[in-house]
């Protein structure tokens, strides 16, 4: 934040008012597709095809949301997605914290392992889809939660973040702990990890949103309705006969709600994570 805060009791200059007007217009236009999603969700199945389209629903109804929710087994899909999107971040925090922590040690091969870890950033997931699918088939993991959870349970980016954080902890801290007979394992669990709370929050949040939004991998690896994830489930509203847009947009609203809510609540961690690394996205 910039230091020169304006003083509200002095009133606004004309320039400032114009600036904020322009800013507001920009933000409203930019977010209009999201507003349109919400507005469409509140239209009934006749009004949604009205021409000219109503910018605001003439008689807003909630029925599209109810119809969309009952059109498919959403509790099941939400449950599946929530399970995966919780398990992956928790495992990722645990596994990459341990890996990142020991990579701050000096030992033979530490450098090579770090390069190996960071090198995975050069291999885009999109190019290994086929090979990963074939590998999963060999492991017998097609149509299992293993396939959805294990590949994301660690990551170069999160290991790197933890390593960067643990390198900032003073040596004295580890030495004092060692004097008290506290081993590496206990030191990491009871001192290191609690101090790394903000790294864990960033890693967990980015990973949750990634998993909640994941599409291509579940599309390939899951073809069992019982294990379907929410993004794939949005297909139910389109068939050869067309799309029921009001229901589809209503479903898009409730599928997006968890990530939007989480982002708004924890926006500081999220944006700090993105801006400091530039890796996500």
């Amino acid at each position, binding site marked *: *934040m910039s230091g020169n805060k304006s003083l509200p009791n002095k009133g606004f200059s004309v320039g400032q008012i114009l600036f904020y007007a322009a800013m507001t217009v920009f933000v409203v236009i930019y977010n209009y597709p999201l507003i349109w999603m919400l507005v469409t969700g509140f239209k009934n199945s006749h009004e949604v095809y009205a021409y*000219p389209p109503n910018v605001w629903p003439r008689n807003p109804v909630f029925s599209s949301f109810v119809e969309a929710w009952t059109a498919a087994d959403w509790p099941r899909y939400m449950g599946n997605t929530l399970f995966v999107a919780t398990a992956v971040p928790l495992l990722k925090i645990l596994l990459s914290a341990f890996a990142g922590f020991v990579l701050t040690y000096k030992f033979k091969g530490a450098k090579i392992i770090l390069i190996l*870890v960071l090198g995975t950033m050069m291999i885009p997931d999109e*190019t290994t889809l086929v090979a990963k699918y074939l590998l999963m088939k060999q492991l017998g993991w097609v149509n299992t939660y293993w396939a959805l959870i294990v590949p994301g349970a660690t990551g170069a980016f999160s290991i790197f973040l933890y390593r960067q954080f643990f390198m900032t902890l003073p040596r004295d801290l580890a030495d004092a702990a060692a004097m008290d007979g506290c081993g590496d394992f206990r030191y990491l669990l009871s001192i290191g990890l609690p101090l790394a709370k903000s790294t864990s929050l960033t890693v967990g949040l980015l990973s949750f949103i990634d998993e909640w939004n994941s599409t*291509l991998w579940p599309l390939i690896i899951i073809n069992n309705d019982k294990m379907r994830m929410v993004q794939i489930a949005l297909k139910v509203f389109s068939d050869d006969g067309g799309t029921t847009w009001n229901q589809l947009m209503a479903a898009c609203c409730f599928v997006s709600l968890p990530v939007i809510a989480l982002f708004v609540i924890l926006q500081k961690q999220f944006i700090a994570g993105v*801006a*400091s690394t530039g890796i996500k996205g």
Partner: protein
Amino acid sequence: MSPLSKKRLKRGAFIGLSLAPSLVIILAFYYFSIFYCFGVSFFKWNMLGAPKFIGLNNYVLMFTNPDFWNSVKVSFVYAFWAVPFCIVLGLLAGLLLKNATFGKSFFRVMLFLPVVISMVVAALIWKWILNAQAGILNYILISVSFAKLGDMPHWMRWVNDPLGGSMAAILFVGIWKRVGYNAVIFLAGLENIPLEYYEAATLDGANPWQKFWGITLPLLAPVLFFVTVIQIIAALKVSISPLVMTQGGPARSTDVFVLHIYKEAFQNFRMGYASAIAVAVFLLILVFTVLQFRVGEKKVHYQ
């Protein structure tokens, strides 16, 4: 055993156990997978029978197949338009945001909302906005007399138009999803530029335009380069928006790389051939990733 070597053994075990799970996952799903992909690309395999070794045949097939070259063209056209728009609009938004004296975090959240929602949802929203009959965008274009109802140009059929409309449709989604992300990265870069530079320029009587070209742009250059490379890589990896909006059609007009691989592998079950394309795309993206790492080393640091 001496207490010292016992301690060393304990530490060694701790290091090994801490790294093992992460290393197994990384080796299996990244390094092994990319080598496996390379290996499979020398075989003909429909997943029903046994794989049959055919040497470089898949690569010969690929380079002589017009559908492959079409996907090269489509992906490059997509990147050609998406990258500059994402960057210019993102920079514009970042500059606006930087000048906000209050409410900065509110505006930043608003710019980031389209970034956090899923690509599927974004693509579906835009497919609805671009609906030829009931879509809001065509209605706006008609009401500002840009086009006449009943006599619309072909591209206003958007996802159903092979001559530009479908490409524009996936571009809208891609650009929309990226502008907010870039704005936040640029904002972090802009806030790193010392205020004294601008104050000195003001004393010398520089106008805002001169300040932008003389101070902002040169000092932002590393970030700008970094973001450009990231955007090129992202554009070459685009897949969900054409998958949701057009399935690569009409007439393969949006059949980007990743979608082409996906269809060859999981619809035509040509695992070897799909792997050959994946290897080609991997090598192409690798060029840009190496570039990104090189620039990264030269301390492109924001925040």
